[in-house]
Every structure is written in C-alpha cells, then in structure tokens.
C-alpha cells in the first residue's frame, strides 16, 4: 500500500516537472546544435557553407534533393565555353536595413571573397561584374561545373562602397538580405536572431531563434530540463529522449572509409618527406578482398551504436553517386577466392603471403577520435580470419602527414554537398597533394570522366559523368573497379526534437553534425495548437 502510494507520488511529481508550461507556437525557438563560427558571420570567410546562413541570402538555393532552386537569382545560364555564368536577380531583394540589394553588391561579394583567403574557395573565379542593376556575370578561369556550389553557399554582403557597406567588423555586425537579423551574439554562449522585416521570401515561421553553443553534457542536461526545442546529441547519449521530445536520425554522407596507398613502395618520398607506397595495398586483389570481406552492418553496430548506414562510396545517396554501387559484403569465402586467385596463399601461421611478402599493413587513424579507433580495431578483427593482418595505429595528424599519409592505409572521414570532393579524392592531378588524393590514385579513364563532368553544360548534365567515374561498365574508382578505398560507414546525425516541432524533409547531411540541419530552416513548422 505504502509502496504503491509512493510510486504514484513520484509519477505525479515527474509529470508536473516535465509538463510543458504553455501550449501554442513559442515566440522563440531554443536550439543547441553547435556550429558557432569563431570568426563571425562573414560569408567571404566561409560562413554559411553548410546549413542556413540566416543573415544573408544566396544566389541559388538547394532543395532536399540538392537540386538548384531560385533564390536571389531567378534566372541563370552558363555560356557555351563554360566560363561565364550570367544571373538575373530578383528586384525586390532588400538588406535588413531596408536598402535595395543590386548586382553591384553581388559582384563585390564574389570579387572580395576570391581575395579574402578564408574557407570560401573562389580560386577559380576570374572576375565578377555587374552588367546592370539586376544582372551579374561571373567569369571563371577554367570550366568547373562545381562552381555552382558557390552560388548555393556564398551569402551576398553589401558593397564596401556603400554607406552601410562591408567593413572589417562585418563578421560581428552582419548585414544581409536573409530571413533573420542579428540581435546579439554572446561569443562562446549563444546567438540570438529575430525575423528580418524586409525579407523578400515568405515570413519565417519563428519570430526569434536562440542558438545555444553548449557542450555535449550541458546540451543533454538542458534538453532533459525541457529548455530546448532542438538538440544535437552524440550517439552514446541518444538512447533515451527526454519526455516531450523524440529522436530524429538524419541520414548523412558523413562517411568513414579506408584510403589505400595505390603505388608500390619505391623509396620515393613526397615533398614533405613522407615515404610513398605500400606493396600490399598496391595490389587490387587485396583491396577488393577487403571490400568484400568487411561486414559493414556489423561495423555500424559496433562503432556507431547502430546509428549509421553501410557506406560503399564517398557520396552514397547523392545524385553524383552511382546507386548501383553495392557490395554483398561480409563474404569471407568470396574474398578468400579473390586472394587465392591473385597468389596470396594462406600459411600455417594464419597469414597470407605472396613471394615472401606478408599481407600486413598499418591502418592509421587520428588519435583521439574514438569512432575511428573503434572502426580500425573492428576492421582488423574482421580481416584476421581472411589472413590479412591489419595493425591499427593512432597518430596525431601532424605525424600522419609526415610519415603515414602516403604509405599506410588511413581511416579518413569526408562527405560534402559538392562533387568537387570526388575530384580532389580521385583525380591524378591531386595525387600526393596533402590530404586530397594522398594514396596516389591514378586512372586515365577516371580522370577523363571527372574532367568531362567539370566541362559539362550544366550541373544536371555533369551527373552521369561523375557516376561513370565510379563505374563506367569497364572501370572506375569504385568497388567494382580499382577499389581505391574501402568505404565503411555513413554516420547518422542524431537530434532530440520537441514533439511539436516538425522539421519537414531533411535531405542528406554533409560531414559535420549539428548546424547543417538548419538547411531547410524555413520549412520548419510548429504543430501544436494554442
């Protein structure tokens, strides 16, 4: 009797503590999804690369399928020589102080960003000029279809020649034509924004947004206290959503995979002195066998707490990735046959050898990254029965760059909303250049496909070429071809979301958990009635 009453009391107290105080759309939404840019909200330095730039608007926007949609520009075209983009701007766009946005601002933004030396990469831009008040032309130094990414991500700032123009302190006092304007940025703590009354698009659904920049533990504590409507949560903490919230798992191309050195060791070193080549991973049979033998579902369970998907390529699910790129993996039998056929014989000590060369290599991962450490250890265990000895090694990035980068298999993580990343990872032009194509992968047929993609007449027209680079029926960088990488997993990005908040269609997130979820911010809706 006394026990059951006690239980009832506890339940009632809990219900009281966690019940929402007031129903109806809240005047402000409180989010803890990280993403604080220490260097401020300056698009010229890279603000707005992922997610929503809030304060500025871009020339084009992207829908959930990453297709281009009009934004400031309502009409756009690429010249036949692929060097000149001409965009027609809408004429009702205004900065949040009410002054009109013209082609001069766009031209200034692009020219200044090309010189700024920040995260916004416009190195291919030759010049930008305003043809008249509402038309702008962007001239490139060489055909590069991935420049369209810049049209999607570069927020337009006011021309420095204007009274209210761009200046040194712009990053902390951003002025743009985006849906929100800055109220206050308390650095290291929170960002408070409110609706921009001059915004040209539909009125944003929420009057005021508060972004809290708290650490993992603090975010969880705040979510449990009912103080947050949206919280980015680490997989290890995501098991139990607090009352009134549910868990949303966003698919991503935030991938982890193994890069293989493609050349045989020849004693050569790169410019930084790092030795090049690995006699084991240089053999396609080894790389293909590894791709066949790994059980990716198991890796997701072990290393990602189940929150992820098997990965077969660098951009699974994105339009420039071949949807047929799949392996029936976890197949040790097929992998063993592939190795036998290539002359890698299983010895009595459980290790395969060919011509005295043991099937043994280092798998290097950046020390301190526990997910990659778990992946590396699991890969080593999964390949042991096959007779391949993988030796996981955690090293600092600097050490990796100096010693391991071109001679060890390396556990990297990439994932971008632009196929330019594919170009950097697989084109021989970038072989051995820093982290880009550090395995020295080179295949003339793949190079040709990648170049054809960059030379395409439109982004849509480039898609088949990107996919052909992965596998064109005869060769490719993917698992059916050279198997230059063994892609392992795509992470799922986890959020606790208020039961009343509808996030709409989320799309596929890039590398980086948190801020990218704001990409479709303007589609979010409050579902509870007042």
């Amino acid at each position, binding site marked *: 009797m006394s026990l059951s009453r006690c239980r009832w009391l506890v339940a009632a107290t809990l219900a009281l503590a966690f019940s929402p105080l007031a129903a109806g759309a809240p005047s*402000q939404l*409180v989010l803890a999804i990280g993403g604080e840019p*220490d*260097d*401020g909200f*300056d698009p010229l*330095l*890279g603000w707005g*690369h992922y997610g929503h730039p809030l304060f500025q608007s871009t020339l084009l926007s992207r829908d959930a399928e990453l297709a281009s949609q009009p934004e400031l520009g309502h009409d756009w075209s690429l010249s036949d020589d692929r060097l000149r983009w001409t965009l027609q701007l809408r004429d009702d766009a205004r900065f949040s102080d009410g002054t009109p946005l013209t082609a001069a601002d766009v031209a200034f933004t692009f020219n200044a960003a090309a*010189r*700024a*030396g*920040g*995260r916004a*990469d416009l*190195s*291919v831009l030759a010049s930008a000029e305003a043809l008249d008040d509402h038309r702008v032309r962007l001239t490139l130094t060489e055909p590069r279809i991935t420049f369209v990414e810049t049209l999607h991500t570069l927020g337009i700032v006011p021309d420095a020649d204007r009274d209210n123009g761009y200046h040194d*302190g712009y*990053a*902390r006092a951003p002025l743009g034509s985006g849906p929100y304007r800055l*109220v*206050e940025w*308390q*650095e*290291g*703590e*929170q960002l*408070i924004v409110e609706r921009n009354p001059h915004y040209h698009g539909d009125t944003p659904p929420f009057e*005021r947004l*508060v972004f*809290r920049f*708290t*650490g993992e533990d*603090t975010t969880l*504590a*705040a979510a449990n*206290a009912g*103080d947050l409507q949206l919280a980015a949560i680490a997989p290890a903490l995501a098991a139990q959503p607090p009352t009134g919230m549910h868990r949303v798992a966003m698919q991503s191309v935030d991938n982890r995979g193994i890069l293989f050195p493609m050349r045989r060791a020849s004693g050569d070193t790169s410019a930084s002195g790092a030795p090049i080549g690995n006699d084991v991973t240089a053999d396609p049979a080894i790389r293909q066998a590894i791709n066949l033998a790994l059980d990716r579902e198991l890796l997701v369970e072990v290393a990602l707490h189940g929150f992820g998907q098997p990965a077969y390529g660098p951009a699974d699910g994105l339009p420039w990735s071949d949807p047929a790129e799949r392996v029936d993996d976890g197949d040790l039998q097929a992998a063993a046959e592939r190795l036998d056929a290539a002359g890698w014989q299983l010895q009595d000590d459980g290790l395969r050898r060919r011509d005295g060369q043991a099937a043994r290599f280092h798998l290097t991962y950046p020390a301190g990254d526990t997910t990659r450490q778990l992946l590396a250890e699991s890969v080593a265990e999964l390949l042991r029965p096959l007779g391949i000895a993988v030796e996981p090694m955690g090293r*600092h*990035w*600097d*050490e990796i*760059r100096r010693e391991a980068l071109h001679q060890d298999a390396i556990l990297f*993580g*990439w994932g*971008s909303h*632009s196929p*330019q*990343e594919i170009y*950097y*990872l697989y084109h021989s032009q*970038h072989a051995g*250049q*820093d*982290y*880009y194509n550090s395995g020295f992968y080179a295949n003339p047929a793949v190079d040709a496909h990648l170049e054809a993609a960059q030379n395409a007449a439109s982004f849509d027209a480039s898609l088949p070429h990107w996919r052909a680079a992965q596998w064109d029926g005869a060769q490719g960088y993917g698992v059916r071809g050279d198997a230059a990488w063994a892609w392992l997993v795509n992470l799922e990005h986890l959020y606790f979301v208020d039961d009343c908040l509808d996030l709409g269609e989320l799309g596929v997130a890039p*590398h*980086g958990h948190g801020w990218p979820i704001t990409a479709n911010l303007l589609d979010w809706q409050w579902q509870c009635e007042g």
Partner: protein
Amino acid sequence: MTCLIAALGRRLLRLIAVLGIVALAAFGLMQASPVDPVDAYLGAQLAQVSPEQRALIAERWGVDQPAVQQFRLWLGNLLRGELGWSRVYNAPVGEVIGTRFLASLPLLASAWLGATLFGFILGVVAGTREDGWADRWIRRYAYTLASTPTFWLAILALLLFSVALGWTPVCCAGPAGVTRDELGLATRLHHLLLPALTLSLLGVAQITLHTRARMLELMRSEIALHAFAQGASRREVAWRHGARHACLPALTLAFASLGELFGGAILVEQVFAYPGLGRATVEAGLRSDVPLLLAIALFTALFVSLGNALADGLYRLVDPRLREAYQ
C-alpha cells in the same frame, strides 16, 4: 627620491626582460607545435578547398614566411602598439583580449578575494589553538582541497549543485535568449556563483596552511608568552599579534597565486562553459593562433608581475619595519 626612481627603473627593466623572454619562449613553443594552423582552421573542410586556396590562406596569415621573419614582424608591430589580428576570432587581438578579460574579471576578482579572505581567516583560526578541534578539521579540509584537481572539483560541483539539486545554472554567463542589456544583476550573480566558488576553493588551501604555520610560530614565541603572562587570552593574542604577523605570507601568496588563478580559470571556464579569457587561450593554443596566444602570454605575465610589484608595495604599507628599512 632618486633612490626610488632608480628602484622603479630597475624594476621596469626587469619587467621588460621578463616579457621579452616570455614572448620568445611562447613563440618558440608555438613553432614547435605540431598543429598546422591552416589544417586547424579548415577542419572538416580540408578536402573541400583547393590547394590554391590553402596557399592564399597561408599568405594572408603570413605563415608561409620563415619563423624568424614572422617573429620580427610581430615584434615590430608590437613596438608600434599593434598586437595583430586573431586568426581564430577574425578580430584585432586587443579587442579579443579586452572583451574576454572583462568577462573573466568578475570571476577572477571574486574568486581571488574569496580565497584570500576565507583562507586567511581559516588559517588564523586554525593556528590559534594548535591541535584543537578547529585546527584538526581545518587542516583536514585544507589537505583535501590542496590535493584536489580543479576540473574534477568543478565537475563535482556542477553535478551536485546544478544537475542534482538544480540550485545553480548548468552553464554560461546568462540564461537562453536574454541579451546582455536585459540581464539583471541577480541573474548575473546567480550564473557567476558556482564558477567563482569553485575557483576560490582552489586558492584557499595554500593560504590557510601558510597562514597557520606562521601563526603557530608566533603562538610559540616569546612575544606570545609575554602577552600570556600579562593575562591576555589566546584569542586576544591571536588577533592582536598573530594575525598581523601572518598577513605578510598571506599577502605574498595571494599575489603570487595570480598566475595559478589564471590557470585555474582556464579549467573552470571550460567546465562551466563560461566565456572568458581562459577559453580563448585554449582555442588559440589548439588552433595555433600565434598572435592571440603571444598576446595572452604577455598579458598574463604582465598581470602577474604587476601583482608581485603590488605585493612588494603593500608590504611596506602593512609592515612598519620594512618601511623604515627602506628609508
């Protein structure tokens, strides 16, 4: 008078030498650091910018120049009064340090005052009656504190007072969605309370133990014996004679601990997500923001040196014997 000026001049020269050595050492350490500033800046976007862009970033920051050239440039700017441009925060270094120091100041000041006063009082009380019950408990308390790492204490305090009891906020200098102008004094103090308390606990132990030692010395001395013989009680002797003697080491320690206070503040600010100079230091170090880190090193060195100079000055004020010796 000339003597005083000469002394001040010597002190100033010594200060400049100290600052020079600090700058050189900090710069040398940064050069030896394995962190590549451009890699650290790009982070996850490493493979999304072109090699040309990387070169442009390095050029903008001047990290493509040889180390000696970089240091000379920095020193030249410093002599002209320019501290440089922070790479991490994309703002003038002076401004970054200014705003963050102002944020840290209430924390540092309250923690320091709390530690000094509380520590001194405990020390005097403990030293009044050696091995009395107060002395035993205060000693145990001080030894426990002295062997407690700051960050651990901070996490423990956070778990107890903020998470379990809910008395204090879990983070930050203010609540969600409230601008600095709207923030009332009470809310500010509420958010400051736990970090300041944790940080002040750090300094208490040292001051208590040193003050106690000096107190014991006095209570066993002939001065105390004389006073006892005249009929003074233990408490009277402790407060009239003991506290006066013990305040010199307490002063020395209080000012010498300014450096430790800075170190402790770094940890405490990390744990409580309190946005002050401590967190800026961590960011600058991890991301190889040389101009900012050098300036912070200089600033801290200056702060601590001034603290020591102040302590020297205060000795003369407090202790008439030193004043006479000087004259």
